[in-house]
């Protein structure tokens, strides 16, 4: 197991390097001068002082070195956890993305968890009672869910539950003192709508997937065998069929981790949720390359990690797969 993990991670190293180079090149191609965003011309009247400050900032951001050198320095700093300096927020990137990262993880973990808690039983039920009214209902729901842009789901929820029913806040972050009980209660209140939005968005696809793989498993010969042996239907469904249906479900799960984290940018933006998606959009709008670089790398690493998680979970759910 450990050996497999080591090898799998090693095989990802070249992929990781290529991705990082590509991201780095993309960032460098970005038009606009980050130093000018940091020091808007005209802010300082005296051109000489401005020049001096400009040079200082230029060197501080490491722009005076050659591109490969910049890449190597950046890579080294990344590995030791030094993410550089944000030209827009004017502080270390680490402190810029620290809290938003936690917030993003919270909403994504909640929505991924909820999506699977709901979609697995629903998918199984739909497959077992195929063409029943509930099955058709969920099918229609998931078709609609798949055809709706997430931001429209979010806007509709805000309109109905925040604007009309006044049950939840429109969006934003709690303003109570962190650490108090009031803070967590209010945090939860602010959390409900974005999590619901993301969950609905994710549910649509996963229900269909679980249902599909469950149907395929149920049509296999060993199910007929199990039934003819006289096993109880529950055992047939949950022990025989579901274990086998799990394999594709695991795939979609790891994909939805990547998809959700990436896709939550729009949801975060709508609900003014202080997550990394919001930070990414703000950073892009303000040409804050260091922050964009780190976030894009984070998304890429997440995607690679999700691949490894997928491999391991395959082995966990399917004894035929050997980690070699």
């Amino acid at each position, binding site marked *: 197991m450990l050996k497999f993990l080591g090898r799998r991670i090693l095989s990802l190293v070249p992929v990781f390097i290529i991705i990082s180079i590509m991201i780095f090149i993309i960032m460098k191609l970005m038009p606009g001068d980050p130093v000018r965003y940091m020091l808007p011309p005209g802010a300082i009247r005296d051109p000489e002082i401005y020049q001096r400050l400009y040079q200082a900032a230029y060197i501080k951001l490491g722009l005076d070195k050659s591109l490969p050198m910049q890449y190597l320095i950046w890579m080294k700093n990344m590995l030791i956890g030094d993410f550089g300096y944000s030209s827009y927020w004017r502080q270390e990137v680490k402190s810029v993305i620290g809290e938003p990262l936690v917030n993003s993880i919270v909403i994504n973990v909640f929505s991924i968890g909820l999506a699977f808690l709901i979609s697995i039983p629903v998918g199984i039920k739909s497959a077992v009672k195929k063409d029943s009214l509930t099955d*058709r209902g969920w099918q229609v729901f998931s078709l609609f869910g798949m055809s709706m842009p997430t931001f429209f789901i979010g806007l509709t929820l805000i309109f109905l539950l925040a604007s009309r029913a006044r049950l939840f806040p429109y969006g934003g972050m709690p303003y109570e003192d962190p650490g108090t009980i009031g803070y967590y209660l209010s945090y939860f209140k602010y959390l409900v709508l974005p999590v619901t939005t993301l969950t609905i968005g994710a549910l649509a696809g996963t229900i269909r997937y679980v249902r599909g793989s469950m149907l395929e498993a149920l049509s296999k010969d060993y199910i007929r065998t199990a039934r003819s042996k006289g096993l109880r239907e529950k055992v047939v469904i949950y022990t025989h069929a579901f274990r086998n249906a799990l394999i594709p479900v695991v795939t979609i799960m790891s994909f939805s981790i990547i998809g959700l984290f990436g896709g939550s940018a729009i949801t975060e933006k709508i609900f003014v949720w202080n997550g990394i998606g919001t930070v990414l*959009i703000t950073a892009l709008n303000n040409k804050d390359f260091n922050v964009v670089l780190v976030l*894009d790398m984070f998304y890429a690493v997440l995607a690679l990690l999700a691949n490894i998680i997928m491999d391991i979970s395959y082995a966990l759910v399917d004894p035929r797969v050997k980690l070699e």
Partner: protein
Amino acid sequence: MNTIKKLLQSAGRMFKRLFVPEKDIRNILEEEALASPGKLVAKKFFRNKLAITGLIGFVFMLVFTFGLSIFIPLDLFRTSAHHANLSPNYSYLNFPKALEREGVSMIDSGDAFSIGLSDEGNVFVWGSNLEGVKDIPDAVKEANIVFISAGTRHLIAVDDEGEMYFWGKNHMYQASIDERYADDFLTDPIVTLEGGFDTTIAITESGSVYIWGTGTSIVGQPLRRSPYQYFDGEDNQIKAVSAVANSTNMVILLENGQIKVEGTNNQLRKDVPAGFLDGTIIGSKVAITEENVLAVDSNGNLYAWGSKNRYLIDVYDNQDQIIKYIPDGARTNVKDLQTGYEHAVVLTNDGKVYAWGASGQNQLDVPVTENVDEIFIGSYQNYLVEDEDIHAWGLKGFLMGTDESGRDFIVQLIHGGKITLTVGAVAVIIQVVIGTVVGLAAGFFGGRIDNILMRFSEIVNSFPFLPFAITLSALMLGTATTELQRIMIIMFVLGILSWPGLARLIRGQILSERERDYVLAAKALGIKEKHIIWRHIFPAVTSIVLVNLTLGYAGSLLTEAGLSFLGFGVQKPNPSWGNILNAAQDMKVFESYWWRWILPGLCIIVAALSINLIGDALRDAMDPKNMER
């Protein structure tokens, strides 16, 4: 009881049939033996009710966007403050039949509504309930009303005892008696009221003119001093008999037939025909549009002056040739002259009606031009009475509302849809082409090529889609100069980020096809590799490609909408469903002008849903083993 049960049952069956395809297993085998695979797929596809629903929805969307866009051009520059943020309503001209029955006494129109007064003293308001104009005060309903007038967004009524009623927009106190003058009116009572452009104009018994409401300070310098009493050279006060105003100027008709124009639009002041100033022409009626003044003298001759922009006056072209915009019949023998915001209508003594001016809202399409008794011309809504019948023409309303600049929203939806549907289609074609070529090559050649291509697709696949689409768009949009370039970039970004999934699918399929006997046979016959790939193997994966094409189309529609919503997609002023929805980020739009985000949202949903239905049905039809998915 039994009939209800039967009804319910049949309704239930109908509903069930809509979603559950009826089972017909008896002759699948026979069909397969007889029909070609293509025909079989088509047959299965068209037997699926959901597929038909999707197909109808998609064709509807195509007609709505591409079809209608041919007839309705996008004109981003034609704006109108009067029509800003009007909710969907198409009944501006639907006057109540009761008004016709009771006999029309007066009709006047505001921005998006009309008010009518019947001979029995009843008041009716129809059209859009802008600023609550349709909520007629109870006191008005009970009183015997003898006079009405409509401002742009407020209404005025006067009863037989001289009591005045105001309702509607009152943000600058235009819909109330101005308290500064309230005392004046006790000694010098109001005799005429007139609703203006968010203003109210009053003329008192002594002939003083009062104006209050929005912009009364910009209507012109002399008017800052209200009440406005016009003095001639010898300080003798001269009495006004009627006054009209637009947002810049006020025109006053004096008792002696002189016409005075005051206000900030100098052209209107300068161009007053000299006869109206020195008393050689006696004016009997004045009217004002947004940029022109029209007047009738005591002999029934028509005069017009002001801007050339609205085709309301005769103009000289480059060759000094006169272009007559005023209809000849309207120049003399005028019985009544009335104006809207951009057009004028004349009723002659022999009952003929002539309309001229701007025609953007059909305000010139007079339905009856002979034997007309009375005309009631408002903003863009017009009515005439002919033999006790009311005929209406002009602006019917806006089926899907308007935006913040008063542009018809349906036009934006049509053209936005065109861009959204095109961007999605091109993006998905790019995706499918790259995915198919890579997948085919990797699967067929195998070995090193396969390895390199698959590593590469793994790398691209590791780019999380949305953050990278945002990043790439933000980066490349900065370099784009023209609108077309920007749109191309979005298509490109969406296309190149989403092909790896399809490439893998195709590769897998090819790997299994490659080992089939027919490929071996083809190879043995010495057929070229290129030929084997395209002629023999590719058809085996067309079903995957086709299904991915449709489902991917829905996906890229949604992604484009999301990107544009964030401002990283199609840029304004080019509309796309996504960037129209962007307006929802404005709290005012989100709360009050619901149609401006719900309608584009619904458009996206209908389009994506139809495409998804088609894709699903295609998959079911093409893969008999996969019926259940």
